[in-house]
Protein backbone atom coordinates (compact mmCIF):
# COMPACT_ATOMS: atom_id res chain seq x y z
CA UNK A 1 0.00 0.00 0.00
CA UNK A 2 2.69 2.44 1.02
CA UNK A 3 4.66 1.49 -2.07
CA UNK A 4 1.66 2.35 -4.23
CA UNK A 5 1.33 5.76 -2.62
CA UNK A 6 5.03 6.47 -3.04
CA UNK A 7 4.82 5.39 -6.67
CA UNK A 8 1.85 7.66 -7.26
CA UNK A 9 3.64 10.60 -5.64
CA UNK A 10 6.71 10.07 -7.80
CA UNK A 11 4.49 9.94 -10.87
CA UNK A 12 2.79 13.21 -9.95
CA UNK A 13 6.13 14.91 -9.34
CA UNK A 14 7.37 13.63 -12.69
CA UNK A 15 4.32 15.02 -14.49
CA UNK A 16 4.92 18.40 -12.87
CA UNK A 17 8.54 18.35 -13.98
CA UNK A 18 7.63 17.33 -17.53
CA UNK A 19 5.15 20.15 -17.87
CA UNK A 20 7.50 22.70 -16.38
CA UNK A 21 10.20 21.67 -18.83
CA UNK A 22 7.80 21.84 -21.74
CA UNK A 23 6.92 25.41 -20.90
CA UNK A 24 10.58 26.36 -20.60
CA UNK A 25 11.53 24.64 -23.86
CA UNK A 26 8.75 26.31 -25.78
CA UNK A 27 9.51 29.73 -24.30
CA UNK A 28 13.13 29.30 -25.27
CA UNK A 29 12.10 28.37 -28.77
CA UNK A 30 10.01 31.54 -28.98
CA UNK A 31 12.89 33.68 -27.68
CA UNK A 32 15.23 32.03 -30.13
CA UNK A 33 13.00 32.67 -33.13
CA UNK A 34 12.55 36.25 -31.97
CA UNK A 35 16.30 36.77 -31.91
CA UNK A 36 16.48 35.19 -35.36
CA UNK A 37 14.21 37.97 -36.67
CA UNK A 38 16.45 40.47 -34.93
CA UNK A 39 19.58 39.03 -36.54
CA UNK A 40 18.10 39.27 -40.01
CA UNK A 41 16.89 42.84 -39.52
CA UNK A 42 20.35 43.79 -38.30
CA UNK A 43 21.99 42.14 -41.31
CA UNK A 44 19.75 44.13 -43.61
CA UNK A 45 20.65 47.43 -42.04
CA UNK A 46 24.35 46.48 -42.16
CA UNK A 47 24.15 46.03 -45.91
CA UNK A 48 22.69 49.48 -46.51
CA UNK A 49 26.02 51.44 -46.56
CA UNK A 50 27.40 49.02 -49.15
CA UNK A 51 24.28 49.43 -51.20
CA UNK A 52 24.48 53.23 -51.08
CA UNK A 53 28.13 53.08 -52.10
CA UNK A 54 27.51 50.88 -55.10
CA UNK A 55 24.56 52.99 -56.26
CA UNK A 56 26.13 56.41 -55.63
CA UNK A 57 28.28 56.49 -58.73
CA UNK A 58 25.42 55.72 -61.09
CA UNK A 59 22.32 57.42 -59.78
CA UNK A 60 22.73 61.17 -60.27
CA UNK A 61 19.27 62.63 -60.29
CA UNK A 62 17.31 60.75 -57.66
CA UNK A 63 19.37 61.65 -54.61
CA UNK A 64 16.18 61.86 -52.58
CA UNK A 65 15.65 58.11 -52.56
CA UNK A 66 19.12 57.53 -51.20
CA UNK A 67 18.69 59.94 -48.32
CA UNK A 68 15.36 58.26 -47.69
CA UNK A 69 17.11 54.90 -47.30
CA UNK A 70 19.82 56.34 -45.08
CA UNK A 71 17.20 58.01 -42.94
CA UNK A 72 15.18 54.80 -42.62
CA UNK A 73 18.32 52.96 -41.56
CA UNK A 74 19.09 55.55 -38.91
CA UNK A 75 15.57 55.25 -37.54
CA UNK A 76 15.89 51.50 -37.44
CA UNK A 77 19.15 51.70 -35.52
CA UNK A 78 17.53 54.07 -33.05
CA UNK A 79 14.59 51.74 -32.39
CA UNK A 80 14.51 50.65 -28.78
CA UNK A 81 12.02 47.84 -28.37
CA UNK A 82 11.35 44.88 -30.58
CA UNK A 83 7.97 46.00 -31.90
CA UNK A 84 9.37 49.28 -33.21
CA UNK A 85 12.42 47.51 -34.59
CA UNK A 86 10.14 45.33 -36.68
CA UNK A 87 8.20 48.36 -37.81
CA UNK A 88 11.27 50.42 -38.73
CA UNK A 89 12.78 47.38 -40.37
CA UNK A 90 9.72 47.15 -42.59
CA UNK A 91 10.00 50.85 -43.43
CA UNK A 92 13.66 50.34 -44.34
CA UNK A 93 12.68 47.44 -46.58
CA UNK A 94 10.19 49.54 -48.49
CA UNK A 95 12.74 52.36 -48.88
CA UNK A 96 15.24 49.87 -50.27
CA UNK A 97 12.49 48.60 -52.55
CA UNK A 98 11.97 52.01 -54.09
CA UNK A 99 15.72 52.36 -54.54
CA UNK A 100 15.72 49.11 -56.51
CA UNK A 101 12.77 50.36 -58.55
CA UNK A 102 14.79 53.43 -59.57
CA UNK A 103 17.82 51.29 -60.34
CA UNK A 104 15.73 49.75 -63.12
CA UNK A 105 16.33 52.98 -65.09
CA UNK A 106 20.11 52.59 -64.97
CA UNK A 107 21.26 49.72 -67.22
CA UNK A 108 24.90 50.12 -66.22
CA UNK A 109 24.00 49.84 -62.56
CA UNK A 110 21.94 46.75 -63.25
CA UNK A 111 24.96 45.21 -64.92
CA UNK A 112 27.18 45.95 -61.94
CA UNK A 113 28.26 42.68 -60.31
CA UNK A 114 28.48 44.18 -56.85
CA UNK A 115 25.04 45.72 -57.09
CA UNK A 116 23.47 42.50 -58.34
CA UNK A 117 24.98 40.59 -55.48
CA UNK A 118 23.62 43.07 -52.95
CA UNK A 119 20.23 42.89 -54.58
CA UNK A 120 20.19 39.10 -54.24
CA UNK A 121 21.45 39.29 -50.70
CA UNK A 122 18.74 41.74 -49.67
CA UNK A 123 16.03 39.71 -51.37
CA UNK A 124 17.23 36.64 -49.47
CA UNK A 125 17.16 38.58 -46.21
CA UNK A 126 13.60 39.63 -46.90
CA UNK A 127 12.67 35.95 -47.29
CA UNK A 128 14.50 35.05 -44.13
CA UNK A 129 12.68 37.74 -42.17
CA UNK A 130 9.41 36.26 -43.41
CA UNK A 131 10.50 32.72 -42.48
CA UNK A 132 11.75 33.79 -39.07
CA UNK A 133 8.43 35.47 -38.45
CA UNK A 134 6.56 32.35 -39.59
CA UNK A 135 8.62 30.21 -37.22
CA UNK A 136 7.99 32.68 -34.41
CA UNK A 137 4.25 32.51 -34.95
CA UNK A 138 4.37 28.71 -35.24
CA UNK A 139 6.21 28.54 -31.93
CA UNK A 140 3.63 30.82 -30.33
CA UNK A 141 0.87 28.58 -31.67
CA UNK A 142 2.39 25.49 -30.06
CA UNK A 143 2.94 27.37 -26.82
CA UNK A 144 -0.59 28.79 -26.76
CA UNK A 145 -2.11 25.39 -27.48
CA UNK A 146 -0.25 24.05 -24.48
CA UNK A 147 -1.43 26.84 -22.20
CA UNK A 148 -5.05 26.64 -23.31
CA UNK A 149 -5.74 22.94 -23.75
CA UNK A 150 -6.43 20.55 -20.93
CA UNK A 151 -4.42 19.42 -18.93
CA UNK A 152 -1.85 22.04 -19.91
CA UNK A 153 -4.20 24.80 -18.85
CA UNK A 154 -4.05 23.72 -15.18
CA UNK A 155 -0.29 23.63 -15.20
CA UNK A 156 -0.22 26.97 -16.98
CA UNK A 157 -2.15 28.54 -14.14
CA UNK A 158 0.06 26.84 -11.54
CA UNK A 159 3.22 28.08 -13.22
CA UNK A 160 1.60 31.43 -14.08
CA UNK A 161 2.13 31.09 -17.81
CA UNK A 162 -0.32 32.86 -20.07
CA UNK A 163 -0.89 32.78 -23.80
CA UNK A 164 1.42 35.01 -25.87
CA UNK A 165 0.59 37.36 -28.68
CA UNK A 166 1.36 36.67 -32.31
CA UNK A 167 3.68 38.97 -34.19
CA UNK A 168 1.54 41.26 -36.24
CA UNK A 169 2.52 42.46 -39.65
CA UNK A 170 3.14 46.22 -39.60
CA UNK A 171 0.68 48.27 -41.62
CA UNK A 172 3.18 49.41 -44.26
CA UNK A 173 3.97 45.87 -45.28
CA UNK A 174 0.40 44.82 -45.69
CA UNK A 175 -0.21 47.39 -48.41
CA UNK A 176 0.48 45.95 -51.83
CA UNK A 177 3.22 48.02 -53.46
CA UNK A 178 2.00 50.14 -56.34
CA UNK A 179 3.49 49.31 -59.69
CA UNK A 180 3.33 51.97 -62.40
CA UNK A 181 4.65 51.68 -65.91
Amino acid at each position, binding site marked *: MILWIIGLLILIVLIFIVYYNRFVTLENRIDNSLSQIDVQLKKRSDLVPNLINSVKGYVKHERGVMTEVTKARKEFMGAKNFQSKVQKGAALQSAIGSLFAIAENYPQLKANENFL*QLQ*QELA*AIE*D*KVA*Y*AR*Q*HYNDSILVYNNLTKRFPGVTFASIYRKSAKKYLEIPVEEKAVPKVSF
Partner: protein
Amino acid sequence: MSQHLSFDDQIQRNKIKSFFLIGIIFIFFIILGYVISLILNPSYFFIIMIFAIVFSMIYVIAGYYNSDKIALASVKAKKASHTEHRAFYHAAEGMAIASGLPMPKLYVMESEEINAFASGRSPGKAVICVTNGALKKLDKQELEGVVAHEMSHIANYDIRFMTLTAVLIGMVSIIAQIFLRSLWFSNINSGGRKDDRAQIALIIIGILFAILAPIAARLVALSISRKREYAADASGIKFTRYPTGLANALKKIKNEHVSEKDKEHRVSNAMAPLFISDPFKKKVQGLFSTHPPVEERIRRLEAM
Protein backbone atom coordinates in the same frame (compact mmCIF):
# COMPACT_ATOMS: atom_id res chain seq x y z
CA MET B 1 -9.22 14.19 -53.55
CA SER B 2 -12.38 14.58 -51.58
CA GLN B 3 -11.01 15.69 -48.28
CA HIS B 4 -8.60 18.50 -47.83
CA LEU B 5 -5.82 17.34 -45.56
CA SER B 6 -3.77 19.94 -43.80
CA PHE B 7 -0.05 19.26 -43.58
CA ASP B 8 -0.23 18.61 -39.84
CA ASP B 9 -2.73 15.82 -40.40
CA GLN B 10 -0.63 14.30 -43.13
CA ILE B 11 2.52 14.33 -41.03
CA GLN B 12 0.65 12.74 -38.15
CA ARG B 13 -0.93 10.01 -40.28
CA ASN B 14 2.27 9.04 -41.97
CA LYS B 15 4.15 8.89 -38.69
CA ILE B 16 1.54 6.62 -37.16
CA LYS B 17 1.59 4.38 -40.22
CA SER B 18 5.33 4.01 -40.22
CA PHE B 19 5.51 3.16 -36.53
CA PHE B 20 2.86 0.55 -37.18
CA LEU B 21 4.98 -0.89 -39.96
CA ILE B 22 8.06 -1.10 -37.76
CA GLY B 23 5.93 -3.01 -35.29
CA ILE B 24 5.04 -5.50 -38.03
CA ILE B 25 8.69 -6.14 -38.83
CA PHE B 26 9.40 -6.73 -35.17
CA ILE B 27 6.54 -9.22 -34.94
CA PHE B 28 7.99 -11.07 -37.95
CA PHE B 29 11.22 -11.27 -36.06
CA ILE B 30 9.65 -12.72 -32.90
CA ILE B 31 7.55 -15.27 -34.80
CA LEU B 32 10.47 -16.40 -36.90
CA GLY B 33 12.67 -16.78 -33.85
CA TYR B 34 9.94 -18.71 -32.08
CA VAL B 35 9.30 -21.12 -34.96
CA ILE B 36 12.99 -21.81 -35.31
CA SER B 37 13.51 -22.45 -31.64
CA LEU B 38 10.53 -24.83 -31.69
CA ILE B 39 12.22 -26.82 -34.42
CA LEU B 40 15.75 -26.83 -33.14
CA ASN B 41 15.38 -26.69 -29.42
CA PRO B 42 13.06 -24.45 -27.40
CA SER B 43 15.81 -23.51 -24.99
CA TYR B 44 17.74 -21.85 -27.83
CA PHE B 45 15.06 -19.16 -28.25
CA PHE B 46 16.76 -16.43 -26.26
CA ILE B 47 20.25 -17.27 -27.43
CA ILE B 48 19.19 -17.03 -31.06
CA MET B 49 17.35 -13.76 -30.50
CA ILE B 50 20.19 -12.13 -28.60
CA PHE B 51 22.73 -13.26 -31.13
CA ALA B 52 20.68 -11.84 -34.02
CA ILE B 53 20.09 -8.54 -32.26
CA VAL B 54 23.71 -7.98 -31.28
CA PHE B 55 25.07 -8.98 -34.66
CA SER B 56 22.69 -6.82 -36.61
CA MET B 57 23.23 -3.83 -34.29
CA ILE B 58 27.01 -3.89 -34.62
CA TYR B 59 26.74 -4.15 -38.35
CA VAL B 60 24.35 -1.25 -38.77
CA ILE B 61 25.68 1.08 -36.06
CA ALA B 62 29.06 1.11 -37.74
CA GLY B 63 27.30 2.27 -40.89
CA TYR B 64 25.09 4.68 -38.98
CA TYR B 65 27.91 6.68 -37.44
CA ASN B 66 29.55 7.16 -40.79
CA SER B 67 26.39 7.34 -42.88
CA ASP B 68 26.91 10.93 -44.01
CA LYS B 69 30.55 10.40 -44.94
CA ILE B 70 29.79 7.19 -46.79
CA ALA B 71 26.89 8.78 -48.66
CA LEU B 72 28.85 11.88 -49.66
CA ALA B 73 31.91 9.94 -50.71
CA SER B 74 29.94 7.44 -52.76
CA VAL B 75 28.45 10.15 -54.97
CA LYS B 76 31.70 12.19 -54.98
CA ALA B 77 29.98 15.27 -53.53
CA LYS B 78 31.92 18.48 -53.01
CA LYS B 79 31.30 21.16 -50.42
CA ALA B 80 29.06 23.92 -51.79
CA SER B 81 30.87 27.24 -52.17
CA HIS B 82 29.43 30.46 -50.80
CA THR B 83 30.14 32.40 -53.96
CA GLU B 84 29.26 29.86 -56.62
CA HIS B 85 26.18 28.29 -55.04
CA ARG B 86 24.72 31.38 -53.44
CA ALA B 87 21.13 30.50 -54.29
CA PHE B 88 21.56 27.12 -52.60
CA TYR B 89 22.87 28.75 -49.43
CA HIS B 90 20.05 31.28 -49.39
CA ALA B 91 17.42 28.55 -49.78
CA ALA B 92 19.00 26.41 -47.05
CA GLU B 93 19.43 29.34 -44.65
CA GLY B 94 15.81 30.34 -45.16
CA MET B 95 14.61 26.80 -44.54
CA ALA B 96 16.83 26.42 -41.48
CA ILE B 97 15.18 29.52 -40.04
CA ALA B 98 11.68 28.40 -41.00
CA SER B 99 12.18 24.99 -39.42
CA GLY B 100 14.13 26.18 -36.39
CA LEU B 101 16.83 23.59 -37.11
CA PRO B 102 20.55 24.31 -37.14
CA MET B 103 22.03 25.10 -40.53
CA PRO B 104 23.03 21.85 -42.29
CA LYS B 105 26.30 21.44 -44.17
CA LEU B 106 25.75 21.83 -47.89
CA TYR B 107 27.23 19.71 -50.65
CA VAL B 108 26.90 19.60 -54.43
CA MET B 109 27.28 16.52 -56.59
CA GLU B 110 28.03 16.40 -60.30
CA SER B 111 24.97 15.26 -62.21
CA GLU B 112 22.76 16.79 -64.84
CA GLU B 113 19.76 15.14 -63.29
CA ILE B 114 17.63 17.05 -60.75
CA ASN B 115 17.98 15.31 -57.41
CA ALA B 116 18.91 15.84 -53.77
CA PHE B 117 19.44 13.87 -50.58
CA ALA B 118 19.91 14.42 -46.87
CA SER B 119 22.07 12.49 -44.46
CA GLY B 120 23.56 12.65 -40.99
CA ARG B 121 22.38 11.05 -37.78
CA SER B 122 21.03 14.12 -35.98
CA PRO B 123 19.89 17.64 -36.92
CA GLY B 124 23.15 19.04 -35.55
CA LYS B 125 25.20 16.88 -37.91
CA ALA B 126 22.93 17.03 -40.92
CA VAL B 127 24.09 17.22 -44.51
CA ILE B 128 22.11 18.26 -47.58
CA CYS B 129 23.45 17.48 -51.02
CA VAL B 130 21.92 18.56 -54.34
CA THR B 131 22.95 17.91 -57.91
CA ASN B 132 24.40 20.50 -60.24
CA GLY B 133 21.40 19.94 -62.48
CA ALA B 134 18.98 20.86 -59.70
CA LEU B 135 20.79 24.15 -59.08
CA LYS B 136 20.73 24.96 -62.79
CA LYS B 137 17.20 23.92 -63.67
CA LEU B 138 15.13 24.83 -60.61
CA ASP B 139 13.98 28.35 -59.84
CA LYS B 140 14.06 29.84 -56.36
CA GLN B 141 10.71 28.52 -55.12
CA GLU B 142 11.35 25.06 -56.52
CA LEU B 143 14.80 24.83 -54.97
CA GLU B 144 13.37 25.97 -51.65
CA GLY B 145 10.72 23.26 -51.93
CA VAL B 146 13.35 20.59 -52.52
CA VAL B 147 15.58 21.83 -49.70
CA ALA B 148 12.53 21.97 -47.39
CA HIS B 149 11.75 18.35 -48.26
CA GLU B 150 15.28 17.33 -47.28
CA MET B 151 15.10 19.51 -44.18
CA SER B 152 12.00 17.64 -43.04
CA HIS B 153 13.74 14.30 -43.45
CA ILE B 154 16.21 15.74 -40.96
CA ALA B 155 13.51 17.19 -38.70
CA ASN B 156 11.51 13.93 -38.67
CA TYR B 157 14.65 11.97 -37.77
CA ASP B 158 14.09 9.87 -40.88
CA ILE B 159 17.74 8.94 -41.15
CA ARG B 160 17.63 7.48 -37.66
CA PHE B 161 14.32 5.83 -38.44
CA MET B 162 15.50 4.18 -41.63
CA THR B 163 18.58 2.98 -39.74
CA LEU B 164 16.31 1.34 -37.21
CA THR B 165 14.38 -0.46 -39.94
CA ALA B 166 17.69 -1.57 -41.42
CA VAL B 167 18.61 -3.08 -38.04
CA LEU B 168 15.28 -4.90 -37.85
CA ILE B 169 15.56 -6.28 -41.36
CA GLY B 170 19.11 -7.34 -40.56
CA MET B 171 17.90 -9.22 -37.51
CA VAL B 172 15.23 -11.06 -39.45
CA SER B 173 17.66 -11.99 -42.21
CA ILE B 174 20.34 -13.13 -39.79
CA ILE B 175 18.17 -15.55 -37.86
CA ALA B 176 16.70 -16.85 -41.10
CA GLN B 177 20.25 -17.53 -42.29
CA ILE B 178 21.26 -19.17 -39.04
CA PHE B 179 18.28 -21.46 -39.23
CA LEU B 180 18.71 -22.49 -42.86
CA ARG B 181 22.39 -23.25 -42.31
CA SER B 182 21.88 -25.07 -39.06
CA LEU B 183 19.49 -27.47 -40.77
CA TRP B 184 22.48 -28.99 -42.57
CA PHE B 185 24.37 -29.71 -39.41
CA SER B 186 21.83 -30.56 -36.77
CA ASN B 187 20.24 -33.91 -36.28
CA ILE B 188 16.82 -32.70 -35.38
CA ASN B 189 15.15 -36.04 -35.05
CA SER B 190 17.57 -37.40 -32.52
CA GLY B 191 15.84 -35.55 -29.71
CA GLY B 192 13.37 -38.38 -29.28
CA ARG B 193 10.27 -36.43 -30.33
CA LYS B 194 6.96 -38.25 -30.38
CA ASP B 195 5.52 -37.35 -33.73
CA ASP B 196 7.72 -37.47 -36.79
CA ARG B 197 5.18 -36.16 -39.26
CA ALA B 198 4.33 -33.14 -37.18
CA GLN B 199 8.03 -32.47 -36.82
CA ILE B 200 8.58 -32.58 -40.56
CA ALA B 201 5.62 -30.30 -41.19
CA LEU B 202 7.03 -27.88 -38.68
CA ILE B 203 10.40 -27.93 -40.41
CA ILE B 204 8.82 -27.22 -43.77
CA ILE B 205 6.85 -24.33 -42.33
CA GLY B 206 10.05 -23.11 -40.72
CA ILE B 207 11.96 -23.23 -43.99
CA LEU B 208 9.22 -21.44 -45.86
CA PHE B 209 9.06 -18.81 -43.17
CA ALA B 210 12.81 -18.36 -43.10
CA ILE B 211 12.83 -17.77 -46.84
CA LEU B 212 9.80 -15.52 -46.97
CA ALA B 213 10.27 -13.43 -43.81
CA PRO B 214 13.32 -11.45 -44.97
CA ILE B 215 11.59 -10.65 -48.26
CA ALA B 216 8.41 -9.62 -46.48
CA ALA B 217 10.40 -7.51 -44.04
CA ARG B 218 12.12 -5.75 -46.94
CA LEU B 219 8.78 -5.03 -48.58
CA VAL B 220 7.48 -3.54 -45.35
CA ALA B 221 10.61 -1.39 -45.09
CA LEU B 222 10.13 -0.11 -48.63
CA SER B 223 6.57 0.74 -47.78
CA ILE B 224 7.85 2.68 -44.76
CA SER B 225 10.26 4.51 -47.03
CA ARG B 226 7.38 5.58 -49.28
CA LYS B 227 5.35 6.76 -46.29
CA ARG B 228 8.28 8.83 -45.09
CA GLU B 229 8.51 10.48 -48.50
CA TYR B 230 4.91 11.63 -48.29
CA ALA B 231 5.53 12.81 -44.74
CA ALA B 232 8.60 14.77 -45.83
CA ASP B 233 6.63 16.36 -48.68
CA ALA B 234 3.94 17.43 -46.23
CA SER B 235 6.24 18.80 -43.56
CA GLY B 236 8.38 20.51 -46.16
CA ILE B 237 5.30 22.52 -47.04
CA LYS B 238 4.99 23.50 -43.41
CA PHE B 239 8.32 25.32 -43.84
CA THR B 240 7.77 26.97 -47.22
CA ARG B 241 3.97 27.37 -47.03
CA TYR B 242 4.09 27.04 -50.80
CA PRO B 243 3.13 23.58 -52.12
CA THR B 244 3.38 24.76 -55.72
CA GLY B 245 7.17 25.14 -55.40
CA LEU B 246 7.84 21.50 -54.63
CA ALA B 247 5.06 20.35 -56.98
CA ASN B 248 6.71 22.23 -59.85
CA ALA B 249 10.10 20.80 -58.97
CA LEU B 250 8.63 17.28 -59.05
CA LYS B 251 7.02 18.03 -62.40
CA LYS B 252 10.40 19.07 -63.77
CA ILE B 253 11.93 15.87 -62.40
CA LYS B 254 9.18 13.85 -64.02
CA ASN B 255 9.60 15.43 -67.43
CA GLU B 256 13.35 15.26 -67.38
CA HIS B 257 15.10 12.96 -69.83
CA VAL B 258 18.17 11.37 -68.42
CA SER B 259 20.61 9.71 -70.72
CA GLU B 260 21.21 6.05 -69.99
CA LYS B 261 24.87 6.73 -69.49
CA ASP B 262 24.18 9.18 -66.69
CA LYS B 263 21.94 6.71 -64.92
CA GLU B 264 24.51 3.99 -64.73
CA HIS B 265 27.51 5.25 -62.92
CA ARG B 266 26.31 7.78 -60.38
CA VAL B 267 24.35 6.18 -57.64
CA SER B 268 24.52 2.81 -55.98
CA ASN B 269 21.35 0.89 -55.19
CA ALA B 270 21.70 1.28 -51.45
CA MET B 271 21.67 5.06 -51.74
CA ALA B 272 18.37 5.26 -53.59
CA PRO B 273 16.01 5.65 -50.60
CA LEU B 274 17.89 8.77 -49.51
CA PHE B 275 17.12 10.80 -52.61
CA ILE B 276 14.17 13.10 -53.20
CA SER B 277 13.17 11.14 -56.27
CA ASP B 278 14.21 7.66 -57.30
CA PRO B 279 17.59 8.10 -59.02
CA PHE B 280 16.94 5.09 -61.24
CA LYS B 281 13.60 6.37 -62.54
CA LYS B 282 12.11 2.95 -62.88
CA LYS B 283 9.16 2.87 -65.18
CA VAL B 284 7.28 0.34 -63.10
CA GLN B 285 5.97 1.48 -59.75
CA GLY B 286 5.10 -1.08 -57.16
CA LEU B 287 6.04 -3.02 -54.10
CA PHE B 288 9.75 -2.76 -54.75
CA SER B 289 9.90 1.02 -55.21
CA THR B 290 11.71 3.15 -52.68
CA HIS B 291 9.63 6.20 -53.61
CA PRO B 292 5.92 6.75 -54.17
CA PRO B 293 4.93 7.62 -57.75
CA VAL B 294 5.77 11.23 -58.63
CA GLU B 295 2.28 11.81 -60.06
CA GLU B 296 0.69 10.87 -56.77
CA ARG B 297 3.05 13.12 -54.82
CA ILE B 298 2.23 16.04 -57.11
CA ARG B 299 -1.47 15.33 -56.76
CA ARG B 300 -1.25 15.35 -52.96
CA LEU B 301 0.75 18.56 -52.97
CA GLU B 302 -1.76 20.26 -55.22
CA ALA B 303 -4.59 19.16 -52.96
CA MET B 304 -3.01 20.88 -49.96
